[in-house]
Structure formats: structure tokens, C-alpha cells
């Protein structure tokens, strides 16, 4: 069978892009606040629903959907941090306490969404033009996804490398005490990353929702590969996450080809991503971060 590798590669980029946008917030907040926020899955779901609500139920189109979902989800994330995680951390909660609390917050958001919109899957009403370039087919949605990913990747890169805020984020994540001692308002930095991280998660949710379906488990459906990206990329390492996202995307998509040709069900493709996590954790627990030490 002739395999259309160009298309497989493109599909991997698409899969990887959603994982990357979803992973940035998780990775950075993990590093800064020192616990893995499981409610991040629900930020993705919430973004997908707000996007669906604005674009399909209110009929305002996609651009407002992205903006409103980014802002609202970012705000919810800020409130969660200020209202729950920060007070807990101040009272001496350990990583485990915070993690369990984040699972609880996630459940509350998930079931609130379920109560509001229902558990039946919903579908974005937008339709896309499909373009054919040589052997490759690409839809408007995917073009937009790649564009958004590139833009946010570049913006994040320059923001982290060149701006004062970016330097503050990097300083706070590598050594919070030293950063605070040098006059950086670490608390403000943490709040900003929680806001932006959740906003990006919301964008990932809209893309995932528009290309598949929207339901209260939308974020949970993809949170495991997103964790894989965070671990493989090295926790808190932005450049590592970029490379990791595409490795995971590629593994999943090539996995489908391999599994189908072996006559196996494609449900094992998730297992391939986890194989990578396990190997990473055993061989190089710091993930790809070792290649991006300066970042």
C-alpha cells in the first residue's frame, strides 16, 4: 500500500499543535506553582464550550469565540488560583494536597459544565473549505490551527527571551527565592502564567472541539497525551514542549499506520505515547530539557 507520508506528517503537526497549545499552561504552572494542575483538562473543556456557545449558539463567529474563551477561561483559572490553590499553598499544603485539590476543582468544573450544557455531545456549526495542495489536503480549520500555533509559539519565544516579563517568568521558574530577592514580583508572574496558560488551553479546546465534538470530557479525552508532552519536554521547559508535542503527534499518527498494517486495532496508539513517557522517565527524567538548558 502506498502510504501518503506527507499527509501523515501534516496530521502529526495538527495533532501535535493541539497538544502543544494545551500543554504550555500545564507545563509552566507546574514549574512555577510546583504541582500538576489536573483541572487544566477542564480549562480545555471550558474553552471548548465557551467557544461553541459564542460561535455556534450565539452565532458570533470564530474570532470572538477565541477571544472570549481565552479571556473567560483565563479568568476562571485566576480565580481558581487565587481562591483555592494559593490559600492552600500558604497554609502549607504539599504537592499531593494541591494535586488532589486540583482534581476536585476539575470535577466541579466538569460537572457544572455537564449540568449547564448537558452530556450529549455538541458540534460546532462552522464548516470549512478544504484545500488540496499536491498530495496533501488541508482544511481551513487546520490552517488556522497551524497559524495560531506558530504565532503563539513565536510570541512565547520572544516574550520569554526578550521581554522583562519573560525574563521574570524564567527567573521565577528556575529559582523563585533568588528571583524574589532580585526584586521580581513572583506572585504577579505566577498569576500571569495561570491566566495565559488557561487561555491557551481554551484555544486548544476550541480546536479540538471543532475538529471532533464538544462534551464535558473533551479536555479529559486529551489530557493524558498532553501530560506526555509536558513530561517528555521537561517540566516547565517551553522549547522542550514544542519538540515533544510533535514527537507525540508523530508517534500517534505513525502508530496508526503501523497498527492498521499489523491488523491491530488503532486504540493502542495512545499506548505508544505512554511508552515514550515511561522510557523518558526511566532513561532521562528531565526529558528533552537537557537540550534546551539555557531556556
Amino acid at each position: 500500500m502506498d502510504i501518503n507520508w506527507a499527509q501523515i506528517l501534516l496530521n502529526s503537526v495538527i495533532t501535535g499543535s493541539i497538544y502543544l497549545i494545551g500543554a504550555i499552561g500545564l507545563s509552566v504552572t507546574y514549574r512555577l506553582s510546583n504541582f500538576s494542575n489536573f483541572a487544566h483538562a477542564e480549562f480545555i473543556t471550558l474553552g471548548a464550550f465557551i467557544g461553541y456557545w459564542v460561535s455556534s449558539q450565539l452565532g458570533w463567529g470564530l474570532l470572538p469565540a477565541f477571544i472570549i474563551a481565552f479571556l473567560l477561561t483565563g479568568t476562571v483559572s485566576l480565580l481558581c488560583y487565587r481562591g483555592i490553590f494559593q490559600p492552600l499553598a500558604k497554609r502549607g499544603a504539599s504537592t499531593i494536597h494541591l494535586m488532589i485539590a486540583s482534581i476536585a476543582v476539575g470535577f466541579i468544573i466538569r460537572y457544572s459544565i455537564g449540568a449547564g450544557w448537558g452530556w450529549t455531545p455538541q458540534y460546532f456549526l462552522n464548516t470549512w473549505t478544504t484545500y488540496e495542495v499536491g498530495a496533501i489536503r488541508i482544511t481551513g480549520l487546520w490552517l488556522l490551527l497551524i497559524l495560531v500555533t506558530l504565532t503563539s509559539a513565536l510570541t512565547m519565544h520572544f516574550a520569554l527571551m526578550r521581554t522583562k516579563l519573560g525574563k521574570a517568568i524564567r527567573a521565577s521558574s528556575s529559582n523563585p527565592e533568588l528571583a524574589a530577592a532580585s526584586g521580581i514580583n513572583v506572585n504577579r508572574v505566577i498569576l500571569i502564567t495561570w491566566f495565559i496558560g488557561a487561555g491557551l488551553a481554551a484555544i486548544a479546546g476550541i480546536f479540538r472541539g471543532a475538529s471532533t465534538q464538544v462534551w464535558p470530557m473533551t479536555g479529559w479525552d486529551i489530557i493524558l497525551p498532553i501530560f506526555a508532552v509536558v513530561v517528555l519536554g521537561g517540566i516547565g521547559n517551553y522549547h522542550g514542549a514544542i519538540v515533544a508535542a510533535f514527537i507525540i503527534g508523530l508517534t500517534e499518527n505513525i502508530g496508526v499506520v503501523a497498527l492498521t498494517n499489523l491488523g491491530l486495532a488503532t486504540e493502542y496508539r495512545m499506548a505508544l505515547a505512554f511508552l515514550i513517557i515511561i522510557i523518558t522517565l526511566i532513561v532521562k527524567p528531565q526529558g528533552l530539557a537537557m537540550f534546551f538548558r539555557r531556556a
Partner: protein
Amino acid sequence: MRRKILLVVMAVLLLLPALACSSEPEEAQVEPVKIGVLLCLTGDLGPMGLKMMQGAELAVTEINDAGGVLGRPVELVKEDGATDPAKGLDRAKKLINVNGVKVIVGPMISGTALSAGGFAKENDVVMVTPSATAGDISKQDWTDYFFRICLLDDLQSEVLSQVVLENGYTRMATMVLNNTYGVGLENSLVKALKEAGWQGEHVVGVRYEEAKKDYLSELQQIKDSKADVVFACTYADDGIIVFKQALDIGLDDIAWLGCDGNHGAGLFKDPKSAEFMAKAIVAGTRTAGGVGAANDKFVTNYTAKFGEEPEVYCDTVYDATWAAAKAIEAAGVYEGKAIRDAMEQLSFEGASGPISFDEKGDRASGTFELWKVEKDAQGKYSNVRIGLVNI
């Protein structure tokens, strides 16, 4: 004296319950005859199961209006199988052990039939399924307690194989759910084609995970295989994603075949899925349902009661409920073995056609419908019957 009064009072108090009992029989609540219903009201098949439950409710209303069974009213004990064989077994156990039902209308999916069928037989409980169509079920050793109103996947794939042969397709791809239903239908279709002397090739068989919800790379495999026909065996919610993504990667220029799992308005919730189905599906199959007075009456009553038309398997669940009631009545007692013996002898005209069972408890014969998806002038999509096939 005081003690005597006290004794009298106590005696009266003791007698009261007995007096109450003796005066009650005339207006005592007649205990209803329970029929368990095990359908998937949540999960991927939730939308279909909710509509099917209405079919069972309609049947019970009619049965009770006609005087119930064994002179008692019939009561449905409903449980949700959640489109999951493990949960389905759990719910079946609850119906049997806690509610004490002797006959269950269900299960809805083949996976739950396989997980719960043995348990039902061990407890002398009869199951009448409206929709568990996998061929494998006939090979089990508990089929003497398991009856099927629906027509089998093997029969459905014979109809599908006729479509493939008539249209002269030579490169067939399959995109099926990785479960008993999907893989069963894929296997029996390939087998039916070989037996019919088909010269073509089964170029690729994709078995996908319904929970993954993203099938681009799976569909790409089909595109790369240069197939001229694709058989898609999906449920509703995953089917929507399969079809919309198939449109995205341009698989609408080859012929697609559908089946009972992707029949129904649930697939049109996403405009792209609907567009794809109207463009690409040359034919789908499903149980035709009865053609005749019994079916007309069912459709009229269902539509009047629920304000919507019955969809796939609403008629078989209605018939299954009636079959359960008729078997209990014929048995004369509410007892599993007797109900089973009565069920084997059952023969009546149901909404889905004439109903009787073969030695495996499978529906003895039936009619299949071929369907397509069409868009009307208002832009509304619907399933349209394009032919009937007797098997």
C-alpha cells in the same frame, strides 16, 4: 378493674391488624408483573436508547390498556446499560437479584449480551433483545434463554455484500468499531463476499476506538489504500466524527456503505457529517421493520404519544416488550423456565413484521431496508428508504 380494661385494650390493639387484613383484599394493590428493560440510555448509544425506551413504554401502556398479563398490570423496571458491557452486566445483576425480574427486554448491545447472557441463564431469566445483532451470540451455550427480535449481523452483511456485488466494487476498505458489533459485521461481510465468489480485495481494515474521537490518520489509511468502496460500521457520536473527518480529507469521492448503527437523525447534528453522508453513502442497511397494519398502528401511536417518529430499533423494542408479555401470559406463571418454553412457541405479527424464533432463539426471517441520506429543499437532512431486501 384497671387491669381488665388494659387487657381489653391490648386485645383490641392486637386484633386490629388482623381485622385490617381481613377487610382489605377487595381493594388490595395487585402486585404488578415486572418486566426488566436494559437499554443504553447514556454513552455513545444514549440518544438511540432513549428513543427505544419510549417504544417499550408505548408497548406497556397498550398491554395494560388491554388488561395486563395474568390479570395483573405490567410494570417496567428500567436500567441504563451505559453502552458498556461491564456496566450492562452490573445492571442486569441488579434487575435479576434486587428487582427479581424473570424476563428482561434487552440488552441493547451485543457486548452486554455476551457479558450478561450467561448470568441470566444461570438465574433462569429470559432475555429478549431488540438490537444485539452479533453473530457470535448464536454460538453461546445460553441461547436457550436468549431471544432476538432484531435480525442478525450475518443477515445484514449478506445484504451489504449484495450491494457490493451489484455495484461491481473491487477494492473494499472497512472502517469499523473495535467491538463485537463492528468487528463481527466486518468479518461476516468479508465472509459473505468470499462465499458469493467476489473477485475483489479487502484492501484495508481499520478497527478504531470509539473513545479516541479523532480518526484522521485512520481515514488517511483508507485514502491511501485506493479503495473504491468503504464500509463504515459506527455508532452515532463517533460516526459523526468519522464522516466529518472523511469529508475533511476528501473521501467523499468514493462510495460508502452504512449500517443500522449510523442510521438516524442523530448523525445530522453536525452539518459536515450530514453533508458527507448525503454525498457519499450509496446505501446503508437496517432492519426494515414491518410493512403492514401492525407497523402502521405502531408508528401512528408512537408519533402521537411522543411527538416524534420512531427511529431505528424502536419497533423491535416495542415487539420485544409485547413478546415478553405474551410469553408470560402463555406461561400462566411468572417463572423463568415456563416463560422460556412459551417464548419458543411464540408467533405473532409485530410492528417489525412476523415474529417467531428458530432453535437458536434468533428471529426466523426478516426484511432489510436499504437507505440513503437526502437533503430536502429546506436544507433538512433525512434518511430515505431506497429498497427492501428479503433474506
